């Protein structure tokens, strides 16, 4: 049987449907370009020669390709140390934030206890709080405690910054694992600890890893608190911010690109978890 010929009304409807589909594609690509083009442009600058960085009009691709500009940036005094500080701060933040948040997230997803809702609400409030401004009193306190200008004191601040988010994300990850799994494990003779270690943990690990990566990125990017809390042991963003006014275009373009590379990589790994991570928070 051949397909029945469409009557004019149906044909018009189909065409409209197709047109709409094409329109959505065009829109999707346009938005993708809006995000990618600026990254491409700063990437082009970061891998162009010095003359091209200062030249006009600008080229659309880094031809001739060179790593001189990136090299120039990395060779600037303090950049290597700043990068190392940033990584150390981010790793400490990631570890502390995850270790402190994981039990709390487990508690609010698995137990019903007096004060649970109050605790959840409190965490939500802290998460929405303009927490970066705590950097001023913390800096003053750290000076009094002799902890100023230390890498770990920046990590302490960043943990306060990321902890609420991590608690909420971890609780949503645990909530996505049915309780029955644990109970089934207990039926088969595991105690509570074994049920957690052998059944729940392997299932939540990817989600917790995603949240840990996001914590790393948040700390790597944070500039305001890091600038206030350090003088000599600056993190990379704090160092770049501080030198911005007296720096060359090469430094700015290469530095900007250098800072956004981790996000390109890390967001790729955690993209599937993003909605799990925020789905719970909005409820």
């Amino acid at each position: 049987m051949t397909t029945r010929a469409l009557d004019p009304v149906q044909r018009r409807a189909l065409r409209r449907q197709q047109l709409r589909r094409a329109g959505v594609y065009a829109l999707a690509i346009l938005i993708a370009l809006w995000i990618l083009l600026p990254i491409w442009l700063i990437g082009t600058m970061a891998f162009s020669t010095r003359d091209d960085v200062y030249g006009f009009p600008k080229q659309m691709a880094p031809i001739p390709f060179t790593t001189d500009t990136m090299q120039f940036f990395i060779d600037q005094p303090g950049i290597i140390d700043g990068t190392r500080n940033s990584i150390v701060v981010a790793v400490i933040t990631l570890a502390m934030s995850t270790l402190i948040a994981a039990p709390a997230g487990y508690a609010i997803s698995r137990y019903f206890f007096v004060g649970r809702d109050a605790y959840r609400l409190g965490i939500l409030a802290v998460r929405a709080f303009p927490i970066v401004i705590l950097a001023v009193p913390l800096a003053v306190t750290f000076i009094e405690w002799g902890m100023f200008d230390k890498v770990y004191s920046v990590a302490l601040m960043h943990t306060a910054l990321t902890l609420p988010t991590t608690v909420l994300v971890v609780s949503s990850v645990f909530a996505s694992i049915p309780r029955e799994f644990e109970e089934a494990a207990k039926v088969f003779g595991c105690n509570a600890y074994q049920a957690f270690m052998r059944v729940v943990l392997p299932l939540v690990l990817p989600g917790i890893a995603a949240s840990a990566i996001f914590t790393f990125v948040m700390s790597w990017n944070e500039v305001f608190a890091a600038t206030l809390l350090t003088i000599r042991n600056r993190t990379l963003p704090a160092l770049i911010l501080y030198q911005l006014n007296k720096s060359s275009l090469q430094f700015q373009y290469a530095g900007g690109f250098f800072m956004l590379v981790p996000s390109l990589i890390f967001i790729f790994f955690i993209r599937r978890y993003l909605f799990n991570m925020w789905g719970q928070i909005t409820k």
Partner: protein
Amino acid sequence: MKMKRLRFNFAPYLLILPSFIYLAVFFAWPMVRSLQLAFVRDSQILPVLSEPEEKADVVGHLEMQVDVAVVDRIRQDETLASGRTRPVYWFKIASETESGEPIEGWVHQKNLFIKSRTESDTARVVSGEGAKEWTLDYVERMINDYRFREALQTTLLLIVFILPIQFVLAITMALVLQSQLRGNSLFLYIYAIPLGISDLAAGLVWVTIFTQRGYLNTFLQQLGLIDQPYIFLSAENQHWLIVAIVLAEVWRATSIVMVIVVSGLQAIPREYLEAGELFGASLWQRLRHITLPLLKPSLQVALILRTILAFQVFAVVVAITGGRVLTVLAYETYRWYDPGDSGFNNPNMAAAYAGFIMLISLAFAVFYLRTVRTQEEAARE
């Protein structure tokens, strides 16, 4: 059995305890400290005594660095812990208090800077006792600072421009992702990239576009719209500075709104939209009357979050303007705190600014929560 019923489950409390303690130390305490810095002056004043001895009555107080006339002096022997004695002087001084009243009395030599203990007839007050007093000086000074008004205006202006664009774009992005195109996961990745980009990097990205020898001028010249590169980012072109900051912020911070909106969209049952379609609602009508009303809670959360974050806008502004030409609240906080050559090294003023950001963020959050609720209540009646 009876025992078991009485047993209270401590496990969840133990599990949340570390986070509770951490936030008490690194969140609640700094908040208190911040208010202390903004509202309490920690100054020294010198009590002037009626007799040349420690326990005498206080007749009045003198501020630091006040010049005093030495009227009389008396030498005493002070016994040290080792058992030896050493001479100390008490000075009878005359001066005026802050309010202009004359004051005369005795002070110990350790509180004065005096050239010769035996001969000088003038001295200067250099130390005293710590005194904490409530003050509105810092807040008043902040409000009267012309940069404060500028910073507040610019911050609000940015919010007014950024948020509407951001929400329209974020909802569009979310709807595009919801329509399940081929390559959806690639689009999702691309749309999510800015989530991980710092405000500083985003600012620098847009500097490459707006700077004098940048890409915008290149495009404009290729299109034949200009002959010479136009200087967008200069103090005379405030509106172009605003445009650049708005674009950078929209580019960077729309993804978080998009993620929240997508989460909200996923919670809307498909049946609602299908029912709408069945009854002949157009795409726009479905969006206006089904999707958006159901998205309201998500949009509310996103709105609160984005507004609070917008009051902290900082590095984008510094990257694009250098901070001096166009200032925002967070930059003023930084400038007052910064002990370096560009700052004032004044934590009290910085805390006043920080407190102001806190207050205005809170006010906006409450405002949003109330407006949305009253609309719902009105709808119910």
